């Protein structure tokens, strides 16, 4: 149970806030930190609000870094944050490939 009135404190700018964390979607550290201060307290909410981990790599590159940043901002241990749900397919699949699952007739 989380009371969202909890205040993660004042947003204090950091020198590396403009560093890109999610490379697929070009989301910076500062944007992630600001989203936490705007009330996005879970990795799922951060993902939905900013698109971190929603690009081609599906967060396989930035997932750990986003977790560290959000945990630090919320002042909680990183392993207490539930990971955002992994979604099928595991690797991006072209639409025509998915479409012809039933063989040539489906093509």
């Amino acid at each position, binding site marked *: 149970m*989380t009371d969202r009135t909890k205040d993660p404190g004042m947003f204090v700018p950091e020198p590396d806030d403009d560093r890109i964390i999610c490379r697929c979607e070009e989301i910076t550290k500062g944007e992630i930190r600001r989203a936490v201060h*705007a009330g996005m307290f879970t990795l799922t909410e951060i993902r939905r*609000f900013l698109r971190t981990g*929603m690009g081609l790599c599906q967060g396989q590159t930035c997932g750990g870094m986003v977790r560290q940043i959000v945990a630090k901002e919320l002042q909680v241990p990183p392993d207490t944050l539930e990971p955002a749900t992994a*979604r099928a*397919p595991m690797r991006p699949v072209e639409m025509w490939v*998915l479409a012809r699952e039933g063989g040539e007739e489906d093509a």
Partner: protein
Amino acid sequence: MHDYSDVIIIGGGIIGCAAAYYLRKKGLSVIVLEKSCHIGNGGSGRNGGGVRQSGRDVRELPLAMYAVKHMWPGLSEELGVDVEYCQEGNLRLGKTEEHLNILQGLTKKASSCGLDVRMLDGEEVRRMNPYLSGEVVGASFCPTDGHANPLKATLGYYMRARELGARFITGEEVRGIRKIKGKARQVVTKHNIYEGDKIILAAGYESRDIAATVGIDIPMSNVLIEALVTEAQPPMFAQMLGTAGADFYGHQTKHGSFVFGGESGFEQVNRDSGHMAVSSVTASCTCRGILRYIPKLARAKIVRTWAGYEDVCIDGVPVISPVEEAPGMILACAFTGHGFGIAPVTGYLLAQMAAGEKTSLDLSAFRYDRFRPVI
């Protein structure tokens, strides 16, 4: 008392978040209780983002028209979050004579309610959207329809309502509503008891079990449907698409990806694992549907698929209504898969209702006691 507020809202989806925002603007205190760890984790975070008037039941049309005219255009500015509202029209596509008949019927009905919808032939459709295949023989077009980003809109309402002082509590599962001296007043959760003068129940299908604790039932079912999204594509077209054959619906987002929804036909009998898993057949079926209309997308990569529940009402329109047997309780559920587009106006009207004001629109078509047996 610490856990008292003027209004308790059960459900932290877009309806609950929007109602909380408009209530805070009126100065009423609000507590929002959400069972999930995340805000907007039900249909609000999983729908296709349509902001449509065309194709709606005529009972629902005034709400959709009000939202499109008065709410969606200024929403990004109001919330301080880009909700990616794009008003470039909705094309409902047809491939057969039978489809065209369906479209003509819908168009006639909507026109009689004052909505600008018109029929286009195949050539006119392709002039508007050159990516559509030659199989498309006609379409209905509503120029004032569009789409928006449901994730940003839901979390945007949450963010602003929270900023204005609404108290949101996630991971707080509601067990029931308790009457005190004949009035719905307490909300009992796993951990706590909250008390409010008004209680808004906007918890999707799960509203049903909660309403049952004060003896109210809404005839609806819980249907698991699926959607998928492609990697970003170069800008192709801005309209929202649907089809008379219900093969798929979708649009290209501001980000460039296409979000599509589709059905396998097994939705009514899907095995429900309880955790919104996608089936093995729906994404493929949806892709087949899409490629017959938009063959250019064959090489676009699908990056994600997901599922979500629709709270499908027996008569196809929602319940937005005070409950006489439990004074103080207001129901907002059974949105039947088209709640997103009317969420801002629904939140606005719920706030009026909870504040004891006359609602800007007549909501009598959405009463909870309208359901009758066949004989």
